[in-house]
Every structure is written in C-alpha cells, then in structure tokens.
C-alpha cells in the first residue's frame, strides 16, 4: 500500500461514517453539538456557575469517551446490519487502517461540539499552557482508550441487541459512575471506591486539578496518569490481539 492509498482508505471511513451522514442528514449536526451540553448546563445551573470550569473539562473528556461508544455502535451497525465489515475484510484495507479511519470519523463527528467546548474552555477555564496541554493529553489518552474498547466490543458482538448490551454497560461504567462533571468529593465515601473502578475518574481528577477548583497532591496526579495510560495500553493490546477481523 502506498501512502496515497492509505490516505484514501482513511478518507473512505471518514466519508461514510461522518461526512456523508452529516450531508445526507443535517439533523445529525444538531444532535452532535447538543450531546455534551446537557450535563454541563445542569451542573452550571445547580452550582450557580461555581463548577462551570470543572463541568467544561468533564464535557471535553466525555466527548472523547462517547466517541468510543459511538464507534462501537457505528462499527457494529455496519458490521451486523449491512455486512460492510465482511466486504471490507475481503479487500486490501487492513483492520488498523479501517479502525483508524473510523476513529477519526468519530472525532470529525464530534468536531462541532469540540469547537464550542474549546471556546468555552478558553473563556472559563483559567490555567497555564501546561494545564491546557494536560487536558489535551488526557483527551487523547481517553480517546485511544475508548476507541480501542469500542472496536474490541464491536468485533465481538454479532448482532444489534448484543451490541446495545455492551454499550449500555460501557456507558454506565464510563460515564454514569465516575464524577466527571463534578469533584469526586461530592460523592459519599463508599461510592468513591466504586468510582475509582472507572478509568474516567482518574482522567477527571487530572482535568479537575488543572482547573484549580479542586486540588490533588502531585503524587495523586502522577498515579492518575499511570492508571489511565496503563489501562489504555491493556485495552489497546486486547483490541490488537482479541478483536475478530477474520472470524473464528
């Protein structure tokens, strides 16, 4: 494969899963912009603005995590309902180029929301250049994590209902359980332990620390980074090893 054809292959996934969907169904744009704002608004109103920076950081993380959940749903849909994966397997494109293209398509899909959130972050989150870099780093790690998980689950699911079950469990663990939009200290102690079962909690701590509203010890933040990076490496490795491109 030449680099020119790899770019074509990546573009194909982005066109199918993001661009054409937006062109053919413009309503999709409205939904993608609105998605991250529901909890952001709730938290802002309830805290009378006090938690807005944290909630914006949370929305940025959640946008990345939802990209992975959407990736899983989109891949399952294409695989099980249209047999597109079968068509693509019997073609020169490799699993990794297909996955990379589809992951980028989720970013493109989330782009309108990301633009709005970035503007809000610039306005409400006051931190150093290093702080902004940390937020971007966390977003990148969580995106990799969520997309690997999404890909892994999509290749394992063989029909829609099973796919829904997977994504239901994943969104509870990754978005309902962890205190992404508000500080972890707001949850009762016993539930904090449960929250720490989710990698999103560690990601949220790093971002919340950057906003300056809550502060954690440098050691805690280091541990947070180690946890999210290790979990991501594990899931990525599992995706490489266990996902089914050619089925058994």
């Amino acid at each position, binding site marked *: 494969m030449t680099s020119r054809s790899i770019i074509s292959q990546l573009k194909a996934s982005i066109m199918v899963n993001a661009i054409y969907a937006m062109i053919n169904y413009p309503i999709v744009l409205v939904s993608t912009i609105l998605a991250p704002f529901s909890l952001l608004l709730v938290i802002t109103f309830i805290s009378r603005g006090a938690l807005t920076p944290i909630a914006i950081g949370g929305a940025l993380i959640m946008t990345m995590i939802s990209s992975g959940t959407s990736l899983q749903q989109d891949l399952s849909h294409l695989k099980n309902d249209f047999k597109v994966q079968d068509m693509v397997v*019997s073609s020169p494109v490799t699993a990794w180029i297909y996955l990379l293209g589809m992951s980028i398509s989720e970013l493109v899909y989330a782009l309108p929301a990301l633009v709005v959130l970035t503007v809000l972050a610039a306005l409400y989150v006051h931190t150093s250049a290093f702080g902004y870099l940390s937020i971007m780093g966390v977003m990148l790690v969580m995106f990799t994590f969520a997309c690997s998980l999404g890909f892994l689950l999509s290749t394992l699911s063989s029909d829609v209902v099973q796919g829904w079950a997977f994504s239901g469990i994943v969104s509870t663990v990754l978005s309902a359980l962890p205190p992404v939009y508000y500080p972890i200290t707001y949850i009762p102690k016993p539930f904090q332990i449960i929250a720490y079962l989710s990698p999103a909690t560690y990601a949220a701590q790093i971002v919340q620390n950057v906003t300056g509203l809550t502060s954690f010890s440098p050691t805690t933040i280091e541990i947070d980074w180690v946890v999210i990076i290790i979990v991501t490496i594990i899931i990525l490795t599992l995706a490489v090893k266990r996902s089914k491109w050619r089925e058994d």
Partner: protein
Amino acid sequence: MTNMEQLTVKGLTKEYEKGKRALKSFSLAVPAKGIFALIGRNGAGKTTLIRILSTQLSPTSGTAQISGLDILKDTDALREIIACVPQEGRAVGWLTPRQFLSSYLMWRGFTSKEANLLLEKSLDELGIKKYADTLNRLLSGGTKRKVLVGMVMASGAKVIFLDEPTTGLDPISRDELWRTLVKLKKDHFIFLTTHYLEEAEKLADKIGVVEDGKLMALGTMAELRRKVKYPYSVKILSDHTVIKPRRGELIKGVDGHYQIVTTEKEAGRISKQLINRGVKFSMNPLTLDDIFYYIVRKPIEAENYDQQEYY
C-alpha cells in the same frame, strides 16, 4: 495446468460449535476463470465456504488456494485481488449508491478521482445510474442488490465472490444481471452461490453441488445430467394409482401424486400401461429441479481434486 489458474480447496472443515460441522473435509478443484456456481439447499454450507475462501472466516482445518495464493498464508496478497458481496450484504442506508461505491473503492486504495471514474462506468453498465443519488435505504431490494454487484465490478478485483446475487430479483432484473456476469466472466473469476440449477446452467462453466457440508457432484451441466441414472420422469396425475417400475424409482410427491424416474425404455412401457388403464399422466425428461433433487438425495462420488483434468 498450473496452480496459478486454479481454485483448489483441500479438506476444508468448519465446526462452528463442537460436534456440528458446516463443512466436512470439503475438497474441490476448478479452473479459476469463468463462472463457478455452487448450488445447494438452505444450510448446505455455501455461505460458510464463500466466507472462508474470501478470508472472512477461519476454517477449523484444511486450506485453499486461489490462483496460487493460500487463504491462510497469503491473506494480504489475496485480499488485493478478491471482492465479495455477502449473502446479507446491504448498501449502507444513509449513503447514496454513488457515495457508497466511491467509499468502497477508496477503502480498496483508489483515489476519489479514480473511484469516481470507475463507479460511473459500473453504474452505467448495470443500468442504475438514475438511482445514483437516491439514498440506498429508499431503493427497492433488487436495486440495492445491483448496487452491491456494481461495487465489486468497479473494484477491478480479479476474483469475485457473490453469495446468492440474484435472490430477490425480478425475472427481468435477473436476466440483466446474468448478462452482466457473462460479460464480466471474460476477464474475471466469479464464484457464486445459488439455489437454482437453472441459473447455474445459464451462467456457469462448472457447477458444484453441496449438501450437508460435502461436495455431492462437480461438473458442467451436461456432466451433471449424465450422472443421473434415470433421465425420464413419469408423473401419475390421478390419486391412488401406483405402478411399480421394473427399473427406476418410485417417489411420492408433496401433492400426493406418484412419480417414477426411470430409463427411456421403461418410461415408454409404463406410459403404455397407463394409457391402457386410462390413467392420466405426464412423461418428461427430468427437469433441472428433478436433477438437483436426485443429486442431493444420493451422494455421487465427488471427484478427487488432484485427479481432475481440465482443458
């Protein structure tokens, strides 16, 4: 003949669940050119075989080579030259045929410019250009099917797998598709599955009959006909009348009527008897359906792949 021009399947077995085998040491050797039609009943193992050959599914044991490329060892090289329309494949609903074909071709590594040229030609060929910008989900089932055939045609892949390409097509569309495939086979190898011997007879250079994961027969339509021991059928059209043939077989049809398959001579003798007794009947050479029925009920020694000679 060298391996380069052959499809060789050696002892393919597929066991989806313990003890339930969809393919049972399936072997086959046919030229990898023209059209090969695999025919068989529901659940015979056609899709399983196509999915294994087109690298979508791992076999439990055995392997196969297409034009000298092994499905397990030369996967990447093989994927460059194959294209597949899965049995339940559908054109993605939120795309138009033009968008879908262009994306598929770009997945295969063509630039969008190259893709556009190729897809226009193929839409034209299949007579579906007028639907090119309608969302796939709004198209009729048959048109959707054609979009998928157009997709693999445009790809330029030398080896094309089509799992039941004509299911759901009206007779005219089916005829159009047949014509397209006949044109396409000049410089492609098309491996298709079907339930209809009629289709296999019209299109295929070679026909394989699969039943219960095994190859029951392999050959041209004329060869398959010759395999049938009793080429004539006498159908007794009144209830309650039975004649025991001296040669041949008595079959009770679903409509309760008896049918005798036998030799030409015996068919003549039975006909006379029936005329004398005033019983209504019909006498015909076996139909394609009869032949299919005959083959899948009675295993015919499948030729050994390495003893086969072609050309």
